[in-house]
């Protein structure tokens, strides 16, 4: 393992993960929307020790562009063995409540584009009988809450889809990892007050890299979100609907 495709490379978690891989001398292929920022990140990763770094812009919701991007990534990396899907937007729940168009767009970005990308990546890796697909889902996908259920349902779709994909890929020796970060202090969550439960992108990144090495299936990052979300899921709906979470 040493050739990674990173989709959504300008996200804080993806960039922190890429830095660790760069220090270990990996070959990297980055995609994102902003070419200027991608170039800056690519230069940084090269200086930090990456064996090679290439990048291209990609609009995740342009599904038709996915295959071409994957072909380019394969060419640049001489066939990638690891793919990290990390792009996403944090939906404005209130705005989504009054605009189905907005809700649809959020679900497209956070769920459908991930389905498209991970399916196509799975096809390529299955043919090679090895590889790892890592997808950033979220604890928000474990149960719908009034404060962010549009984002949550998209992540829930991703989690469920990956669970099936993992079973299908198992016989091909392809490992599928669902990463469920809790609250992460990134520019995406800049508008939230931070408390004890918040963690840094660097520590989530370290968790992702270790999950790849240890061939994990579903990881909560940090680990304490697993018992927290277990309890959240166990609350009966009759009680849950009265909560203000």
């Amino acid at each position, binding site marked *: 393992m040493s050739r990674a495709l990173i989709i959504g490379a*300008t996200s*804080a978690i993806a960039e922190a993960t890429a830095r660790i891989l760069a220090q270990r001398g990996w070959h990297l292929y980055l995609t994102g929307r*902003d070419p*200027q*920022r991608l170039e*800056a*990140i690519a*230069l*940084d990763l090269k*200086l*930090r020790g990456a064996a090679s770094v290439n990048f291209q812009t990609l609009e995740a919701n342009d599904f038709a562009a996915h295959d071409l991007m994957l072909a380019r990534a394969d060419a640049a990396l001489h066939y990638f063995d690891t793919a990290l899907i990390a792009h996403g937007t944090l939906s404005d729940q209130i705005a989504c409540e009054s605009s189905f168009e907005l809700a649809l767009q959020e679900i497209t970005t956070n769920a459908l584009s991930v389905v498209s990308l991970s399916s196509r990546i799975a096809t390529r890796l299955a043919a090679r009988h090895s590889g790892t697909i890592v997808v950033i889902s979220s604890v928000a996908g474990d149960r719908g809450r009034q404060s962010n259920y549009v984002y949550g349902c998209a992540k829930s779709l991703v989690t469920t889809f990956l669970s099936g994909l993992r079973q299908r890929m198992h016989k091909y020796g392809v490992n599928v990892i669902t990463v469920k970060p809790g609250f992460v202090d990134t*520019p995406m969550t*800049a*508008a*939230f*007050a*931070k408390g004890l439960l918040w963690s840094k992108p660097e520590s989530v990144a370290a968790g992702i890299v270790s999950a790849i090495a240890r061939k994990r299936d579903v990881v909560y990052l940090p680990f304490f979100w697993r018992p927290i979300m277990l309890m959240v899921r166990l609350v009966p709906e009759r009680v849950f609907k009265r909560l203000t979470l």
Partner: protein
Amino acid sequence: MLTRVIGSWGNVQRVPHEALSLRSRFDPFPRLSRTATLLPFGNGRSYGDSCLNAGGSLLQMRTLSRFIRFDRHTGVIACEAGVLLGEILQLIVPAGWFLAVVPGTQFVTVGGAIANDVHGKNHHRVGAFGNHVLSFELLRSTGERIVCTPKQNTALFHATIGGLGLTGVITWAELQLQPITGPWMDVESIRVTNLAEYFDLAAQSHDEFEYVVSWIDCLASGKRAGRGVLQRANHRADDEQRREPRRGNWGVPRAVPVSFVNSITLRVANTLLYHRQHTKRLRAPKHYQEFFFPLDGIVHWNRLYGPKGFYQYQCIIPGDSAEDALRELLTAIAGSGQGSFLAVLKHCGGIGQQGLLSFPMHGVTLAVDFPNRGADLERLFRSLDAIVSAARGRLYPAKDGRMPREMFRAGYPRWLEFCQFIDPRFSSSFWRRVGKAPNA
């Protein structure tokens, strides 16, 4: 608007701020509410209130943490302003380079090192951090981006070095590094019995040693005033492989109920530190981490001072009056029974200061930590202020949380000239306390 309670290293003040951040160095100047002021915030290692902007906005710079260029032949590195000095060292030491100047911790950002024009144990030889800055970009509240070098936008260059973050946001900087052979240092530790001996030994050491610094026992008084251990060192010229020291990764929990620094622990610690080496002179190779950043192995050592926090008093006394003034200062500190095991004495050289508000000048600097004891401590500080002012010395803004306005203005005579370079949307708690233009 998001408010976050943010404190500085001394933990005396913790105040709410609007917290802002940039995603990249290409981002436009952040939008501020109509009356709000902004201050860039690096890694929060300033001790007092120079990195705080109570009630205003802080622009958290750690997100700008990318390397831009590193030329392994010329030793020039360019990076975003939020990169930590420690991260730079990780990259450059294996390539045979070292930062020209490092302060006592590697956990400061490049932007913070410039804004405070930090100095190191080699000030007598190479000057301060600002003497090795080749260029940087300043993002002003007008949206303008100004590249400053010693030859281009010179006035703003010199205002920004040591400018306490008030002249705009430094987005990236370019630094000249120094070549080294390997990560090891040749370190000589010499026990010094009093202040006169310190001055003699320091004077002898400056020609032969790049790095000279002295730890002193600030409880010793009378004939023993100034006793301590002088350390002098050079980068080792060999590249022999040695086992790298295991860095402890100790942490101090968030809620230390009381200060662990009191008159008993202090006396024990200082006596142990003084007698740690049995011989007068000890010579040994040390890894650069151990020599430059002994405290970095204890994460959050500042919490040892308990919930009330601590102050550091760092002054510099110019030229020839230094020895007498230092004797008076040490006598006053020892007499008070306050103070800490972190007392450091260092000669600064005469290399031209780059910043209008740079702290180091030709003279001797003394830094002592004090647990926060409220009015008792402020009384001691007032008497120290009087000694420093009489000797035409000044205090270090990066460490300060209390100096009187008159003392700042007398110590930094170019402060008025500096005022014209302040970005009108920028301010800090420190600046409102000591600097703000007289008619504002």
